């Protein structure tokens, strides 16, 4: 500890697990927005990634509550948030936003898009697999033209509702921080906006990477028109995100309120590596420069692929650093503005680095299972006849 802190402030309350949570939900929101680009805004260039984006969102959404559960003092009481939610609390209302998004949007949309394949796979398989697909089909086997048209229409409506829902999913997380007037690092109306746009950036970058990696693993050709389009949207979204963050920063520096000196010192010392180096230079300026280059100049395909892959990876690192800087940074300085503390990140404890790493890897395992059960690509040994070419 340095300087003066209120005695109860020295220990950090929210650990790396709480950094992980907005990171994971951000990826969900971002992946979904990319998927909805095709569905609602008819950006059909990104269609090859539609199903992959949805499954990625689902995999990460399933894991998202886990860091929270690990962090709670009494995880066995977590159901109370649904039973006696305190309506004034953003955290309580978020439980319902999460549930709504999972059930009414994501699961429903995936189901509607895959329904035909599920029914066909149920018919083509035996034993336990057949039972699984039968269950997933909810017992209905109607895949006539009419039914599929109904599905398409319903899916369109769901996606339409889904876009503001995805915005809420992550905007709410931003609000959970942004509405805390006690903490000047968090308290700003820009927080939900910054969180949302950085979520979109990280989600789009993730789907871009997933598309490249899964294509490589499947030895399938990458649709460059798709990849270029994703990269374009990544660039534009990133520009907006960067603008928002710079606006917050410039505003703080200019107004220089009572918290400014303390926060400024914190950024230049405790948060130098994670904020200035990782978030700003490595995680924002570098990928932005790479992406800008690809938009301004024509590079051969192989070079573009490399640039996109590097940009997307750096982006994801940068967005993680941003979550770290918000959550951990907000607890490193005293609310008296007279002192600082340090975050002791341990390795093998309930809220340590090891569980955080496990939780970051887990969604990929879940995604693997999801891809096996609900293959995003047609013609892949499931007995499903390719209805459309990807």
């Amino acid at each position, binding site marked *: 500890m340095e300087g003066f*802190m209120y*005695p*109860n402030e020295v220990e950090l309350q929210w650990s790396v697990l709480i950094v992980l949570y907005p990171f994971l939900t951000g990826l969900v929101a971002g992946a979904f927005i990319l998927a909805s680009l095709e569905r609602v805004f008819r950006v059909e260039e990104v269609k090859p990634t539609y199903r992959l984006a949805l499954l990625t969102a689902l995999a990460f959404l399933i894991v998202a509550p886990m860091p929270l559960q690990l962090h709670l003092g*009494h995880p066995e009481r977590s159901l109370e948030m649904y039973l*006696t939610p305190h309506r004034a609390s*953003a955290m*309580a209302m978020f439980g319902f936003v999460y549930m709504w998004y999972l059930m009414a949007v994501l699961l429903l949309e995936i189901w509607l898009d895959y329904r035909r394949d599920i029914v066909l796979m149920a018919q083509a398989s035996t034993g336990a697999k057949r039972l699984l697909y039968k269950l997933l089909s909810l017992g209905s086997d109607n895949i006539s033209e009419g039914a599929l048209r109904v599905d398409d229409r319903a899916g369109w409506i769901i996606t339409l509702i889904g876009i503001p829902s995805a915005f809420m999913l992550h905007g709410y997380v931003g609000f959970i921080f942004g509405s805390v*007037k006690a903490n000047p690092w968090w308290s700003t109306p820009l927080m939900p906006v910054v969180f949302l746009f950085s979520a979109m950036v990280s989600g789009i970058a993730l789907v871009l990477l997933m598309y490249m990696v899964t294509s490589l693993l499947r030895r399938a050709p990458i649709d460059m028109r798709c990849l270029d389009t994703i990269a374009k949207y990544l660039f534009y979204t990133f520009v907006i995100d960067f603008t928002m963050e710079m606006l917050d920063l410039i505003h703080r520096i200019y107004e220089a309120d009572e918290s400014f000196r303390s926060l400024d010192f914190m950024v230049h010392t405790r948060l130098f590596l994670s904020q200035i180096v990782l978030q700003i230079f490595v995680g924002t300026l570098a990928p932005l420069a790479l992406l800008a280059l690809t938009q301004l100049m024509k590079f051969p395909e192989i070079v573009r692929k490399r640039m996109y892959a590097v940009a997307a990876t750096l982006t994801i690192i940068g967005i993680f650093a941003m979550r770290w800087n918000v959550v951990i940074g907000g607890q490193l300085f005293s609310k008296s503005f007279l002192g600082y503390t340090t975050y002791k990140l341990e390795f093998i404890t309930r809220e340590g680095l090891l569980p955080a790493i496990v939780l970051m890897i887990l969604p990929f395992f879940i995604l693997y299972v999801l891809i096996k059960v609900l293959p995003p690509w047609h013609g892949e040994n499931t007995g499903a006849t390719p209805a459309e070419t990807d």
Partner: protein
Amino acid sequence: MNLTRRQVLLLLPAAAAAWEFVKAGTPDQAPNYSMDEHWWGMLLDITKCIGCGSCVRACATENDVPDGYFRTWVEQYHREDWHIEAPVVSSPDGGKNGFPPGKVAGGKNFFVPKMCNHCVDSPCTQVCPVGATYHTADGVVLVDYEYCLGCRYCIQACPYGCRFFHPTKHTADKCTLCYHRISKGLTTACCENCPTGARQLADLKNPKDPIHEFLKTHTVQVLKPHLATGSKMFYNGLDGSVR
């Protein structure tokens, strides 16, 4: 309070009668206590605080506060001349064992006792997702240890740093204004043990409470008024450098 023998003789049966309700170690409801008749606050007099830490120790004893965590604490301030935005502050172990003899002479030096402000518009109760921290009808903010999830949102939301995460209960915890004492007609442990009267419990709904007169004749402040928390801890003689 100068007691004559006569007063003592009158006090004895009253104390004995009151004590029936207050028996140590025998958890009992507070009879004859109606929440609607009270609105609790406290007067903290900076001009009287000597930084002895008796309040911190008494609170820890009365409420089984674990070592290293504080339901109340005392800070020592040094304001150098006109540098009101950069005081030098210290609180060794929350002031639990007093303060070392001060060496920094010059400027203005004083002690500030801190605690939960039992805010009327408390940000902590606003953010609790399940209703595990709440306002009572008599103006006290409490925590339900059987219901709290331990999410720590309330600890983040408190601008005064008065909440902490209890290391064994695994719930949020904080000053309860000795609710178990004040509902039985006693004063809080900190007020009882303050040797100079720097801390005094106040029932703002009681017209006979001396705080009303005090508030008329003295200049008082609350901490962080710009956050409009509705704090009911009134500080007499609070310097502008206090955070």
